[in-house]
């Protein structure tokens, strides 16, 4: 797990993703709450959207809502379009390429991970797969009508080949790994 995580971190950072790691879910949630507080301070207009996923239970949601007033778990098109940040819970990742991989069949997950300028992904350290073939034994079109692999933030080099981040999707991708993370 350690070497997979180290590879993931190096590869993901190389494509401008930000990588954090915590042992317990509560620590990760504290980190996300603090981060969102710092980001959304004063900007009460913009919501923060959190798409439903496997990792949070109702008390976690309550606690997060209490700490981050802009946070909503009801993701709509309009809210996502005006959101300062979107949070998704992602099942898998690939060390080899620094990639997040998950089932995005719900519209909420797609909205939260595409429209806001900031995407925070909560994921489990133990679910890191070494490479693409290993991932495809875990995540297959049989189980999901919409699979997304995400490697770093949205990028383009279409003007004079100058790398520019955040053209259509998120400008920042913050990946939060938790070692002890269980599906609820």
């Amino acid at each position, binding site marked *: 797990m350690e070497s997979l995580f180290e590879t993931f971190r190096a590869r993901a950072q190389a494509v401008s993703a930000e990588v954090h790691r915590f042992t317990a879910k509560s620590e990760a949630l504290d980190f996300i709450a603090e981060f969102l507080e710092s980001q959304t301070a004063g900007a009460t207009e913009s919501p923060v959207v959190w798409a439903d996923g496997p990792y949070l239970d109702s008390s976690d949601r309550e606690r997060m809502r209490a700490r981050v007033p802009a946070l909503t778990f009801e993701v709509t*098109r309009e809210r996502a379009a005006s959101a300062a940040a979107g949070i998704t819970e992602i099942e898998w990742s690939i060390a080899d390429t620094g990639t997040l991989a998950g089932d995005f069949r719900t519209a909420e997950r797609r909205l939260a991970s595409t429209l806001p300028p900031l995407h925070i992904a909560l994921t489990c350290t133990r679910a890191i797969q070494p490479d693409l073939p290993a991932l495809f034994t875990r995540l297959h079109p049989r189980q999901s009508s919409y699979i997304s692999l995400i490697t770093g933030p949205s990028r383009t080099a279409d003007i004079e080949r100058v790398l520019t981040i955040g053209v259509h*999707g998120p400008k920042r991708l913050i990946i939060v790994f938790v070692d002890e993370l269980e599906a609820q």
Partner: protein
Amino acid sequence: MSRTDFHESIQAAIANPNLTGALGRFSEAYRVSRAKAYEGIDFEAVRTRIAGLKSYAAAHLEELAAEFTRNAEARGAKVFRASSAQQVNDYVLDLARRNGVAGVVKSKSMASEEIHLNAHLEKAGISVSETDLGEWIVQLAGERPSHMVMPAIHMTKEQVSEVFSKEVNERLSSDIPQLVAVARRELREKFLAAGMGITGANMAVAETGSLVIVTNEGNARLVTTLPNIHVAIVGIEKLVAKFEDAVPVLTALPRSATAQLLTSYVTIVTGPSPNTDGSLKDLHIILMDNHRTEMSEDPKFRQAMQCIRCASCLNVCPVFRLVGGHVFGKTYTGGIGTILTAWFEELKKSQDIQSLCIQCGSCVEVCPGKIDIPDLILELRRRLVKEEGQPLMEKAAFNIVNNRTLFHSMLRAASVMQKPFAKDGLIRHLPMFLSSACEFRSLPAIAEKPFRDVFPKIEQRPGREKIAFYAGCLIDFAYPEIGEAVVNVLNAAGVEVVFPMGQTCCGAPARYSGAYEAAAGNAKDNIAALLAEDATQIVSACPTCTVALKHEFAKTFESLGMTGRLESAAALASKVVDFSSLVERLVKEGRLAIPAAEQLETLTYHDSCHLKRTLKADHEPRGLLRQAGYQITEMAEADICCGMGGSYSLKMPEISAPILERKLKNAAATGAETIAMDCPGCAMQIRGGLDKQGSGMRVKHTAELLAERLKK
């Protein structure tokens, strides 16, 4: 396009510093970053898998299309099989009308460009927005993509700012992040308002009915999420059998296209997913044929179905980086684009653009689909000559070359007639219609005495092995001194060199001009002459001739259905070897020792295309030169074409000249006094260019440099 318009479009492209500057810098960076992206990956293994799975798919198109349809429909998608462009356009327009769609957002789709879908929809009053940044820029500017992966690479940020300013009605700066932010803002509104999203697909997986879509900007995720209707237009060459087939393609595509380990987003759509209003996506997948089945049924061109559209053949092409994509036509560009245009539009449309290929083979080395693009372009040339006929001048020339006695006596006559133009063995000016041939480089004068007259006078020690020397026209009639050097080096190793007098032109000029009958005539004559001699091997000091003898005689016979000649071609091929590989073997066997000198002039080595890429001999000449005591300072892009390409430099002087200029610059930057090579054709081009520049750099064939050492 007329021939003149075509040449004018080439000249305009070459004279555009934005285009050549951007493409030139990109091509230099690409080689390095591509290699880095493939670190730790066995490229040969990956591309063998891709070639295998794609050729399987090409051979089972109907079966896979049916399986895909079944599986995608079982998951709730609507699949429409379209044989023509018109059917696709009508289907999409009808769908849009029935659903009252006013606005369409698109992520990049070459298939939709191929059928001019945007124009079709716009004519019906539907607004269409490209959302890939480069495509959007090009769309707003009313231009065409100049590169398959980087559509706006020909434009500067100032030009983009100009275009965007007009679109948003405000004066914008040319700051790139700000321009990108404007695109984000403007296109975001269009995404949210659109009633239909159109994508292409990089793969369509038969086994699961899935579409695999690769992007960096994230626009395909928005296009497939925000509008309630998703239409995917998929050329049937994108079909693969198994889901696991996605692995090698996803390994190679990002690395080869943009030197990334993986693109920012890979989206796998299998049937409809919920829309943002809770309804289910209306998912339409159009499997488009548009001549692909025809192409897959052609035994030669089936290979082109192995393309994964990475555009690496453009990125390594010494011609593409000069002319860019605009000279190629409407949709597909570069080497593979030439082939696709010939099939998806018509063969005649490739008449001009196929002539851009200099046959250097750089693309063959990097193609993840293992497509022999130059070979397929030659086949286009052959079919064009068959259908459209050979230009008269060329036809006359090849008729002469096919008659050895006439050809050789004309060369002898020319050696006399050229006298007013030749000085120090070079021709610097020619009158009238021949003048463009030596505008950018001097030409060698035809030798007073061809090698065939010199050979009998060369003194040889008796040897214990007999090897036949095949000179080729350039050594025979322009550079007999290279031939002499070859004989001297081999004889020093105890080899008795024989020179079969019946040998003639190797037929490469005819073959590369699509005149296969003439090439076959040359092949027949040479096989008879060379096999008549009782020699253990046949050596040539011209890589183009070596490749002709070793590989192309058989291919030419095969193309013409002359299967009865294949056996003799194979017998010849098994004996043919290039000079440096032969000498390396003789040294290894202890039959030749090259006395190393203490102090020699500094040297750089130019890899000839055929030697490096077809004969795979790049270490051999370098090893021999080092043994002779030379320190080799490698030049940048040592293995990129010098621009000669046989008659290419005469037909396309406007392209040949800047390629040569780059080569000379790279060679000069090493500070070396001598530039060595194994090809008399490259020597002719490079020597001619240096002469025009007044450079004192020496140009020598490896055989000459070795012979110099052995003489001392």
